[in-house]
């Protein structure tokens, strides 16, 4: 039985005090109309002033390739919590409540507990990073994310020497996520990284896309982005991070152990058992292009896997 909070949230419940005060200052100085107009432009309704997107700086590792049109990124993706069709997330994700949001930090770390998203984001310099994204299905995009390195957050919780892996979980709430009403995958969605992968400077937590807050269908309010791995590793709408001693079993490993491994690094030499991974269709392009080792990030990440058999550890 689900016990739900009664009563409806009002705008003042979700607006941080400082923004609320600032609004009063605007009113006092007689700029109410202008302020409201500017505010409405800068802060989309669901942002509630949490993200200071005007302070985003260009981050490292950005690709100079042409970015995929925003309309394609927000209308064509997999987010099985909202349905298995790639148009389902855009259709159903608007019902997801992303504010308030909190993350459960647990396991082998000095600091654990439940932290609000505001707390997680406090004082972080947000960066825009343009990353390639390669889906295991054979299509790819170039996406301008806004976020910060996962490593910065991990350091804050001081994982102990026992912590070898990170285990992430997506929100589980079939009322908001209609796709979870059927057991297509073992809910909640689980993903994982090895500690050195999590600490790698390429790995980021994203809260924004194309200069705006993350649309719900793309994993709002906070998601992982690991650009050298197949897209499904980049777990969306994260509610829990668990520092573990043993390798987590991810949802896709459970669904198809012979097809989806823990690492799931982009690798044109290792086919999916049912289709080749040698080439990919970049969304917006007609002809397929060659898939690059580690999705073109080999220079940065190949050393993480030195001496490892990547066919066995697919």
């Amino acid at each position, binding site marked *: 039985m689900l016990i739900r909070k009664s009563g409806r949230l009002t705008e003042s419940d979700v607006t941080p005090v400082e923004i609320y005060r600032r609004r009063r200052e605007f009113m006092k100085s007689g700029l109410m109309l202008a302020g409201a107009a500017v505010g409405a432009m800068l802060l989309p309704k669901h942002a509630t002033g949490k993200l200071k997107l005007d302070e985003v700086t260009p981050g490292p590792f950005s690709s100079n390739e042409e970015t995929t049109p925003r309309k*394609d990124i927000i*209308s*064509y993706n997999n987010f099985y919590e909202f349905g*298995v069709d790639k148009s389902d997330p855009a259709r159903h994700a608007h019902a997801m409540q992303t504010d308030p949001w909190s993350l459960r930090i647990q396991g082998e770390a000095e600091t654990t507990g439940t932290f609000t998203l505001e707390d997680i984001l406090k004082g972080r310099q947000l960066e825009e990073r343009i990353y390639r994204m390669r889906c295991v299905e054979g*299509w790819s995009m170039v996406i301008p994310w806004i976020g910060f390195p996962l490593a910065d957050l991990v350091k804050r919780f001081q994982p102990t020497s026992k912590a070898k892996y990170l285990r992430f979980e997506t929100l589980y709430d079939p009322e908001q996520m209609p796709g979870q009403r059927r057991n*297509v995958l073992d809910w909640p969605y689980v993903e994982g990284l090895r500690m050195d992968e999590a600490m790698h400077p390429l790995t980021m937590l994203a809260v924004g896309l194309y200069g705006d807050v993350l649309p719900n269908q793309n994993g709002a309010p906070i998601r992982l982005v690991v650009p050298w791995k197949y897209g499904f590793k980049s777990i969306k709408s994260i509610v829990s991070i668990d520092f573990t001693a043993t390798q987590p079993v991810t949802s896709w490993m459970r669904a198809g152990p012979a097809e989806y491994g823990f690492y799931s690094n982009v690798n044109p030499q290792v086919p999916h058992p*049912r*289709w*080749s991974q040698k080439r990919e269709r970049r969304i917006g392009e*007609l002809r397929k292009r060659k898939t690059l080792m580690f999705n073109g990030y080999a220079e940065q990440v190949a050393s993480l896997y030195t001496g490892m058999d990547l066919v066995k550890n697919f």
Partner: protein
Amino acid sequence: MVVRMLHRYWLKPVVFAACLLPMATLVWQAYSDQLGANPIEAITHHTGEWTLRFLLLTLLMTPLKRFSGWLWPVRLRRMLGLYAFFYASLHLATYLWLDQFFLWDEIWLDIIDRPFITVGMLAYLLLLPLALTSNRYMIRRLGKNWKRLHRLAYVVPALGVLHFWWLVKADILEPLVYGLLLAGLLLARLRKAPGR
């Protein structure tokens, strides 16, 4: 009287036109940029699904005649079968041309390495002689063998369902539904036609 006229002169042209609707939808969506972010995938899925639907519709005609007593379903059987072939051909052409751009070595590797493509190709190869021998001349010429050959119409949709089943990542609901419909249609034949 009117009904008989309708059946005689209008049934086939109307059904013929209706069967072109999935094609028309596709053309319209392509023209008005409604195929989404991955148009080639959308075309592949659309033509593949309609192939399967027409294969099942073709198999529906004989039991429909038997259980209802109407004669018109049998008159439509060949046309529906040829439409299945038409959409299968579009499906295959999309794969060879738009998806693979005629990279024959890649296509060959796909056929020998990827079971779902192997099965899809096999299904098309088995459908091809059925389309080629669907005219009156071939029916007469093949005699008894024609019927034997055209039993492949039961095999092809089964391969089609398998092709779909092996393609999906996790959610087998859709191929399962097609599979159950096919099983139903085959069972309907077994029960009523013991002497065939």
